[in-house]
């Protein structure tokens, strides 16, 4: 009993930690993007204010049961993904839950939230919601192809599907990181990261020009607060996963925050430079060079 209580307590602390890392990262990145535009940008704490604001809305309409469950599924995807990744290697509090082969489940969780959101968005009845979900699913499917190859390459290299073991194998200095040990797999992974982080040129699910906002069109008040919270947890969890897989994991909170932030700058930098792709351009891009690099990584690591 006490074991379970302690485990739940640690999970809550860990989630609270990652939520704040995510919100602050988004706040800082918002300012950086604004500087690129020549603007000043919103305050760093703007994501917090936005969440308090959406919670404080006094009315909310519903479109049915799935409409309620859509954001719940979405945040389940984010929370489930994060709780299976050891955030700080060797830490009791931020070690989260892990088991042999969790890498497979993690890949599934990246997709899970999207599917839940598809159900909720469909019930909202707004055509832009359905369209945005369709576009988002198409892109995630395409970007998971190079990611899957990168993971297979890593598993072949380390003879393990456990994230903890992959992190453990990278300890002992910079040159043990998969970034240097398996650079081709890292390249494939980083390309697919572009498609997962929802920054342009791959923000086609929101499609700011032709179907502004996409899946969350109808969500408001507390539903939206859930989605906003999930956005920070989910995005940061994906970055933590990449830090674990390719950049040697993190052995302290400071290392984790720094690595997550620096890694996030990569999709952000690509995003402020390039305009947006259309759906078919994005799919074609992912199935081209990144997939080829992924296949090359698998071949290199297996033979």
């Amino acid at each position, binding site marked *: 009993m006490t074991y379970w209580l302690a485990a739940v307590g640690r999970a809550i602390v860990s989630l609270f930690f990652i939520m704040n890392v995510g919100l602050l990262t988004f706040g800082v990145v918002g300012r950086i993007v604004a500087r690129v535009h*020549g603007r000043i940008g919103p*305050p760093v704490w703007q994501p917090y*204010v936005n969440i*308090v*604001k959406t919670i404080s809305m*006094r*009315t909310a309409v519903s479109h049915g049961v799935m409409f309620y469950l859509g954001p719940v599924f979405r945040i389940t995807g984010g929370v489930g993904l994060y709780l299976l990744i050891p955030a700080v290697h060797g830490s009791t509090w931020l070690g989260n839950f892990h088991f042999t082969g969790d890498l497979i489940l993690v890949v599934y969780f990246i997709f899970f939230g999207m599917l839940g959101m598809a159900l909720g968005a469909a019930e909202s009845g707004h055509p832009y919601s359905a369209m945005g979900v369709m576009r988002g699913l198409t892109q995630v499917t395409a970007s998971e192809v190079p990611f899957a190859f990168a993971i297979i390459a890593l598993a072949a290299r380390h003879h393990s599907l456990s994230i903890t073991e992959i992190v453990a194998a990278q300890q002992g200095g910079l040159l043990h990181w998969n970034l240097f040990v398996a650079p081709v797999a890292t390249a494939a992974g980083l390309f697919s990261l572009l498609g997962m982080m929802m920054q342009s040129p791959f923000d086609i699910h929101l499609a700011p020009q032709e179907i502004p906002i996409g899946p969350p069109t109808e969500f408001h008040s507390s539903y*939206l607060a859930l989605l906003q919270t999930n956005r920070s947890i989910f995005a940061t969890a994906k970055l933590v996963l990449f830090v674990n897989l390719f950049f040697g994991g993190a052995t302290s909170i400071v290392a984790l925050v720094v690595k997550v932030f620096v890694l996030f700058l990569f999709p952000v930098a690509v995003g402020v430079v390039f305009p947006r792709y259309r759906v078919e351009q994005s799919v074609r891009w992912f199935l081209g060079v990144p997939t080829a690099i992924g296949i090359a990584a698998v071949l290199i690591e297996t033979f």
Partner: protein
Amino acid sequence: MAELFCDARPQAVDPAANRVVRAFYNWAQANSLFILAFGTGCGAIELRPLFTARYDISRYGIMPRPTPRQSGLFIIGGYASIKTMKRIIRSYEQMQNPKFVMGLGSCTVNGGMYWDSYNTINRLDYYLPVDVYVAGCMPRPESLIAGFGRLKTLIREGRAEGANRYAENFDWYKANQKRIIKDWNMPEYNW
């Protein structure tokens, strides 16, 4: 078609009873304003420079949202033709309480240079509860920013209760709206 719309009348909802919570919520409302991205009339052209480098409204916590569900502030950017009025009313009713309306330009105050036109309205607050008017034809972005400042003060003081006024005087607003919109081929309740 009917099942796609809610058929309940709007209800006035009181703000949080606890004084501290209410003040905190009002502060958050004032510092995170989502503008509905719906440009009506020529004043809407003044909204664009607000978002770009010169005026950069985002530093005040103000940003555009393309969906009425998530927006809290509706800026009526000048003359509202009767045809647009139908869409304005639908969009306004789909926004969630608390919601605020800003009338931009002389046309929303008294009709402006379209005063005797056959297809524009003369006074916006007959049809929607307006919190702040920004006069001018057309007002510069600076006056708009001053208007935002005024609106923020009102929200922080808890005096921007337009959504509740709309619900309490619903019949009066509906009667006024139907007087000008002759082909009322939309549902009575739109949220």
